[in-house]
């Protein structure tokens, strides 16, 4: 038994590993501090396009984290309790604690994915209690090889020594049942090799599993705003002074109040 509970104290709880602190980053995405100004809109939106392109190039979201999340989601769904599926509140007479570590072998560079240890792996750690999943999931990359559009990618630990090269904030209300249905904030500190060229990959973004698209926090007047791509292709800016939908083709932004401006 790895975590046997002693006989002396019937209420003794399992000791869970301490997750990294993501509160500052989460605050950035939950309450944008920057203001949207038409004068800086063009630079701001360009920043978003650059970040989105970099992320797409790494394939981190679609080729790595999405299958990893799907594997975890499948396991958690199988483990959900009847009360969760009924939408009932957790049982007040139950105190539970647990920790889960997931290791997924990467797909490799071959024409067909193979579960070969030589392909490297990604690992994640998830804590949970009777109330559901703890808000932070974290993990590391270990020479993870995969393909994006037929081109090779290699994810390596950054060497910064921080706890969790990959960090995910899944919110305070995540349960075994609704995991991967709510917006996730990700923070990565990795080294990525693209077509043989290595570079640091330090990025944070918000991932919407339903839309399968990222949002980025980009610098604006007075702080950061959150920029995402809407279903119509327009960019949506969430700022301290409101929400704005911007069309790059027309160089116009429309506020949620109905006011529009050019940039």
């Amino acid at each position, binding site marked *: 038994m790895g975590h046997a509970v002693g*006989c002396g104290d019937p209420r003794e709880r399992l000791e869970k590993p301490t997750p990294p602190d993501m509160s500052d980053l989460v605050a950035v995405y939950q309450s944008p501090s920057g203001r949207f100004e038409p004068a800086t809109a063009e630079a701001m939106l360009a920043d978003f396009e650059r970040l989105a392109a970099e992320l797409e190039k790494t394939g981190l979201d679609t080729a790595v984290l999405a299958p990893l999340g799907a594997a975890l989601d499948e396991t958690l769904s199988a*483990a959900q309790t009847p009360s969760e599926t009924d939408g009932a509140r957790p*049982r007040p007479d139950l105190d*539970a604690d647990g920790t*889960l570590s997931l290791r997924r072998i990467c797909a490799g560079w071959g024409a067909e994915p193979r579960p070969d240890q030589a392909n490297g792996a990604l690992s994640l750690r998830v804590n949970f209690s009777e109330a559901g999943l703890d808000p932070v999931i974290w993990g590391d990359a270990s020479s993870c090889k995969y393909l994006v559009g037929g081109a090779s990618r290699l994810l390596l630990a950054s060497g910064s020594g921080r706890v969790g090269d990959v960090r995910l904030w899944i919110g305070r209300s995540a349960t075994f049942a609704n995991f991967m249905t709510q917006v996730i904030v990700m923070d990565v500190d990795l080294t990525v090799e693209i077509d043989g060229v290595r570079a640091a990959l330090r990025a944070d973004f918000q991932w919407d599993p339903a839309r399968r698209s990222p949002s980025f926090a980009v610098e604006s007047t007075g702080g950061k705003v959150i920029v995402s791509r809407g279903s119509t292709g327009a960019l949506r800016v969430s700022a301290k002074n409101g929400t704005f939908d911007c069309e790059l083709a027309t160089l116009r932004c429309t506020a949620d109040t109905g006011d529009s401006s050019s940039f």
Partner: protein
Amino acid sequence: MHRGHRRLVLVLAAAVALAAVSSTAPARAYHDDGEQLTDGTAYTLHARDLRLGPFKVQYGVFDALTVGTYVAPWVIRMPNLHVKWRYLHQGPWTAAVQVGSYRLDVSELKLLNDHPGDAVITAGTFEPSLSVRSSEDFTLSVSLPYTVVRAEGSLDTEAFEGALSAAVDNFQATLALEYRISRTTALLLRSRYLVFQLARADGRVVLRPDDYTTIDVSAAATSSALDFKGAWSAVAGVAFSFDSFNLELGAGYGNWNVAPFNFVLPGKMVIPELELYWVF
């Protein structure tokens, strides 16, 4: 049967046979001075007394030390032994402590033949008790039984492997009144109150949902779902003691306590009580 269990059976059987053959103590069971009921009290058997019955077998090693075993668990190959030590016997006051141990290897029951796993159930009891005989006819006894029942098992399949354990901790307070109305008959009132009954489980499971993924889960849980608040029982009865034969009959109401593991059942019901044994 496990070699250790077989040895224990042989030792007990030998002890019983030896006691039966060599006992020179007179047959005694009447409600006389120096003779006390030993169930639910701090009293022990006299040295070399042998108690035989369908529910329990006990032997008085010394006046202050009784060893015994419950019969029913042996039916399911569950070796069990209890020892009661009377450490105080002064004037009207008598104090004792009883400890018991039980072990059941479920795999020996051949129930898991088709399953790649095993399970072992163990139980331990610790029961201090105090009796005061305030007059020739009246005895009051209090005991505080604490019981831990633990089950441990492991599984190893192609899909996953793991080890799990579960336990129920139970703490009770009991009160027993005995009033002797004749040499052969005594009235009994026994009550029981559940202080707590907590269930807990912990385990570790390694899952392999696909060829790429390995998931290692460790978890521990405690539940008060079995902690039936306000659980109690009261049983009134009568104890008949003859030359060597003893019979206790009773009926009561409340939450049933499953002896010898002291597991309290939910819901209140009518509780019948029967105990019969011979003391040689």
